[in-house]
């Protein structure tokens, strides 16, 4: 138990007991799906259908179904890829970096954020495969023993680095996420009534008993994985940025890209976490766990990373001018004033100007405004990648090859489709998995309970679940597995 200053805002509101936490989180898993969830899943599945259709067209007829051309060889595909990878950054940041920094407020959001990371990385991973002319040969990017002769992969190629970076990131994130889930699965297992649920959650919980030894190992593994994940937060987007930075294309060939991409990734990741959390907390009635304080904290991170990104944008222009390289200069002039000026200024407005509104406390603490802001940032970050990729490529060195790019219906279909894939996975997760890390939230509850009843929250009309009366609160357990419920 660590000492927490009494002047700090409580992390969980509503005077929750340990049992309340279990109840509130497990209710979603155990109850029949509600109509809003069903409706949301239907929409997501519809979009997933769009995804499958678009993928079928792409695989059956070829990449020509997209809007690409001889000059613009990547557009929406890699834009979406980088966008989704970026979104996938918040989860690891929250669970790993904030764990190492002992930021307790992360406990109620890390589970969903990590899930989001994994689903976003799955969506992202679609694109490097789908964008290949011959995706059935995608396994050739792995260095494996083969009978093709002395064929090996090209370790000079940033695309190969990508393969390693993304696959490492995905596997570590998955393990990290799953490790955290094990105690909570056990809780659900113990509460499960149906035979299927019993078997399923038994398998998922890996025989977790909640013994001290288990907890000790759990803590150790979490810490190790956090340590492993932390450099990954930096490495993944650094390497993604090298897809561009190591090339010779003016507008891509920029040394600022690694830090700039990492900041942008965290920026967009937090925006996506906010979007999802704001919906989840309402749909699943988790306002006491994901409090306005969480939202304000995430807003601050968004503002900081957004400002870093803004500085990076300006630095790029400065360097273009300072370098005196005519192609570089033109690339940036073209970005801001050329035929894709609207994309550039959308990006600037969404990513640089809007996050600055968070300086205003009213904005930071306003749920509707935060929601709108998070959507704007997501749009802005998509445009950032579009601007980098398309406006750099469409007018590079030889004016004879300058072209315009416009997406085909299949391009749009695949993008919208991955959103469908993402939400399908997320909704299934939200229904069948505990969306909040019960075990870890309980670790911050003591402090909360001590101070909780005095705090009424921002909105007095919040629905507050009735505190359970039959169960006492363990006096000193920092983490306690609530076995009896």
């Amino acid at each position, binding site marked *: 138990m660590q000492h927490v200053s009494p002047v700090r805002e409580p992390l969980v509101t509503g005077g929750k007991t340990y049992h309340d936490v279990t109840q509130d989180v497990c209710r979603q898993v155990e109850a029949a799906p509600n109509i809003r969830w069903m409706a949301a899943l239907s929409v997501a599945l519809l979009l997933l259908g769009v995804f499958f259709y678009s993928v079928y067209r792409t695989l059956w007829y070829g990449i020509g179904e997209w809007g690409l051309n*001889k000059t613009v060889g990547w557009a929406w595909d890699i834009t979406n890829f980088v966008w989704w990878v970026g979104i996938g950054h918040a989860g690891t940041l929250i669970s790993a970096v904030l764990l190492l920094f002992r930021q307790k407020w992360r406990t109620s959001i890390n589970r969903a954020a990590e899930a989001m990371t994994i689903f976003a990385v799955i969506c992202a991973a679609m694109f490097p495969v789908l964008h290949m002319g*011959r995706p059935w040969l*995608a396994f050739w990017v792995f260095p494996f023993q083969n009978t093709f002769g002395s*064929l090996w*992969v*090209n370790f000079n190629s940033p695309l190969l680095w990508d393969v390693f970076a993304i696959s490492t990131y995905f596997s570590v994130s998955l393990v990290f996420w799953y490790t955290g889930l094990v105690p909570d699965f056990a809780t659900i297992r113990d509460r499960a009534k149906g035979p299927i649920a019993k078997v399923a959650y038994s398998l998922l919980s890996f025989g977790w008993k909640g013994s001290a030894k288990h907890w000790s190992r759990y803590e150790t593994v979490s810490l190790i994985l956090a340590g492993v994940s932390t450099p990954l937060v930096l490495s993944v987007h650094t390497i993604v940025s090298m897809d561009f930075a190591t090339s010779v294309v003016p507008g891509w060939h920029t040394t600022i890209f690694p830090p700039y991409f990492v900041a942008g990734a965290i920026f967009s990741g937090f925006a996506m976490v906010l979007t999802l959390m704001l919906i989840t907390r309402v749909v699943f009635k988790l306002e006491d766990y994901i409090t306005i304080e969480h939202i304000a904290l995430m807003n601050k991170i968004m503002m900081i990373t957004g400002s870093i990104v803004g500085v990076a944008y300006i630095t790029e222009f400065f360097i273009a001018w300072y370098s005196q390289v005519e192609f570089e200069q033109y690339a940036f002039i073209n970005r801001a*004033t050329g035929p894709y000026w609207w994309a550039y200024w959308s990006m600037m407005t969404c990513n640089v100007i809007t996050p600055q509104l968070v300086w205003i406390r009213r904005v930071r603490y306003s749920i509707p405004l935060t929601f709108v802001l998070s959507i704007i940032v997501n749009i802005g970050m998509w445009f950032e990648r579009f601007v980098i990729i398309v406006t750099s490529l469409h007018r590079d060195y030889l*004016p004879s090859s300058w072209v*315009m790019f416009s997406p085909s219906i299949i391009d749009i279909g695949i993008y919208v489709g991955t959103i469908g894939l993402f939400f399908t996975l997320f909704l299934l997760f939200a229904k069948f998995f505990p969306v909040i890390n019960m075990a870890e939230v309980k670790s911050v509850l003591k402090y909360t309970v001590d101070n909780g009843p005095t705090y009424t929250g921002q909105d007095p009309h919040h629905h507050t679940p009735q505190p359970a009366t039959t169960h006492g609160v363990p006096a000193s357990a920092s983490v306690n597995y609530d076995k009896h419920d």
Partner: protein
Amino acid sequence: MQESPKYWKGIEELENSPEFVKNALAEFADFMPVKESHGSADATVAPRRDFLKLMGFGLAAATLASCETPIRKAIPYLNKPEEVDPGIANFYASTFFNGQDYNSILVKTREGRPIKFEGNPESPVTRGGLSARAQAVVLSLYDGGRLQHFAKKGAKIDKDQLDQEVRNALAGAGRVAIVSPTIISPSTKKVIAEFGARFAGTEHVMYDVDSASGLLRANGGVLPAYDFSKADVIVSFGADFLGTWLSPVEYARQYITNRKVSREKQTMSRHFQFESNMSLTGSNADVRVPLKPSEMGEAILAVYNSVVGGATSTDKRLQTAISELTRAGARGLVVSGSNDPAIQTLVTAINQRLGSAAVDVANPSMVRQGDDARMARLLTDIRNGQVGAVIFYHANPVFDHPMGADLAAALKAGKVRTTISLNDRLDETGELCTYAAPDHHFLESWNDYEPKRGSLSLAQPVITPLFATRQAQDSLLTWAGSPTTYYNYLRNQWKGVLGGDFNKAWDKAVHDGVAAGTASPAPVAQVGAALDVNGAINAIKSAPKPTGIELVIYEKVGIGNGSNLFANNPWLQELPDPVTKATWGNYVTVPRAYAAEQKWEQGDVVKVTANGKSVELPVLIQPGQAKGTVGIALGYGRVRAGKVGNELGENVLPLATMRNDAIIYSNAVQITPTGAKSPIAQTQTHHTIMDRKQVVQEATLKQYIKDPKEVTEYEKISTPEGLEKPNKVSLWQDYEYKNHHWGMAIDLNSCIGCGSCVIGCQAENNVAVVGKQEVINRREMHWMRIDRYYSSASHKSDFEAKGKLDTYAAMEDPSENPQVIFQPMLCQHCNHAPCETVCPVLATTHSSEGLNQMTYNRCVGTRYCANNCPYKVRRFNWFSYYSNEKFETVNGHMFTDLGRMVLNPEVTVRARGVMEKCSFCVQRIQLGKLEAKKQKRRPQDGEIVSACAQSCPTQAIVFGDMRDPNSRVSQILRREDGERAFHVLDSINTQPNITYLTKIRNTESSEFNA
């Protein structure tokens, strides 16, 4: 009696035990019993291991048996033809002429299939050059749109029956007309004469789509032969002599001879071009003056008055031309593309007065003989029902004569009793004829040609006729009742031409494809005699002076006269026009100011009306288009050309007019917008160079003479040791080239932008055709392209005055009358290639001879290489161009067995999803190396040539081994180092193996953007 020895199969047979006897009778051995045997002593039971073996074998056998072997029709030679070795190409000399430009060619055949043309270096006329049109014609051999049998009213008919019916019909026909484009074959002409002797009242009328009737008339019926290499000052009034006028391949070579510069030869011809449309020739001119067609006569009159009478013109640029022309004297030349006899009379008079050495009327050219007046008269007679029979021999006047609609009506109304088409397909005229006796393709035929008096050439069949066709000359001979075949006829004719041992001389002529000698009568001496200059002056002065918009009808370099072989040819349809870079169809070229005034955007469809007829075509904004004029290309609007050529653009010929008994390819027109839109498929949509000196460089001759070291700007980079060449600093290790190092030098001063290399590359490397929509989607597949840049009125020097943003925006707009520069662009085979480092699977790698190689099989198609290529020369297979039905029409030759015969078996047809690009014709390099190795020697310079370099009519592209110090490319690089040699985008340090030479214009800097 000796007993035959007995052999046993084994000891068992010798012993002949009962068990052996029992087993020997059974067909199969005992079925293998299956039982677990471990621990058991029973040896008759097979162990599980055997069972598994047996099952494995059974499974494998069943699987193999169920696999169907794909059946491929690969039939070996029963008797191998003497000359054919599978896998080795044979070359046969031949000649192509279809009424437009003449090309002496070498036909490359593989296993008896013609697959590519190369220029015939033996030809004194084309000297190894080849036009894009001629190169593409190999594809039309395999054109499924050809008529594959004899036909009567479109239905198949027996050959003998057709002959019988035709003979009967001709016998009582009375007046018989044979209509053809220009025929330069002396033997064919004799055949026609013989035919005429058999059927009295036969007349042979020749007409040309791009008529030179006026020029012929002004020169007493002969077409002067021009030699542009003998002209130091060339003044051309609308003659596109590098692109389409008379004999462009020949002229291009001559023209460039006098344009190449080096430290030793610092002189160049000076070329003035007065024209309405921006032509290929105009875009190469030193001084180009936009002029309306109605002003052309006055301008030429001014030249005449100055040259003859010493008067001066008030027009400054015209006066410059006149004074330089006068100064040049016999080294001056005036040509005009006009078909107006009056104008051509003046031009002839000017050249005579100058005593121009570049004009030769003693050994004239033969490539245009059409007589507009005679053709018009014939058409009138047909309309009036005065002609009994018409034979259309490669002629399609329903489509390509301005009075075609009248002819169609007359034919439909049955004004001619007997109509016969010898055309290769049921084209617009052919389908209106009763009989069709399709001619062979010229690759299936014997023929002779005399493009110029004294230069003969031959065509020989290189493939057995694909269809049940018959050579037109044989048809004519058959109908005339001659027992001989055309081959014998031809040989007999040549007996009179070739001296000495005929068989030997004939074999040599067939082998070489060309021979000296003539089969034509000497032209009537007419110099100066019959010129009616005063009449011409009066005619020019009284010519109508339209006040509105004038239409100029021109020919596109790709489609030419739009005849069958060109129009239904997807390679040509997709060949970007050198100037507009547009493919697949025609359009109205309008000056920018006019478009702005009318608020038209590119692609807006307008209706152009003249003579009561109109065409509706999209607008293309054309810098350099003369004020008050618009241009439309002829040769489009075909409806019976075939699947590829039909329904592309509109036929503009009905808008032409007749004056002074000649077709005048211009007219006053009304233009109205229609509100519709029709996108134009251009391969290049940004037209200026944005002042990027690192991409393409040019200088004036004056600067060059002053100091050849000052004409090229070399980018330097800052290093701690000061400014250095970009390749001084590098992260990469250099490759070591131990044997060969292939390289190329491209002289921008010699490149005229004709596009011949584009088609040469396409034929050599099986480059797919993608069709109009995919060109609009910017996905054409050409490995070799020619970038065309217009100059802009704005330059980087305006940054200070106008600011960067405004200047950059202004630099995107070409000048009103821009200067043009062409730059052939292909894979630069960089020694530090950006594409090679980024491929994750090493599908693109560097060879030990400096080639940047693409391994199609290894490519997974990430397109990263294409993104990272600064030259944007990599092409991605977006679709299966050989099996996706979307491409069946345009890329048909990759779909059918017939069409696939044209594919080069040495080059893979690339699969969907892989990247492709120029390979420096690696298959030709390998072939050359192997040939040399067989003879135990090093390859000689000039032996290994890429397809683009081979087909270049001006030898702007030189390919060779840079490690061989005596190779031409090494010599050029040595000579031009630090002078004109530069690498495109040197500062990125890609270290290309292709070196460009700075273009030198013979122009004053004040004439820039005139």
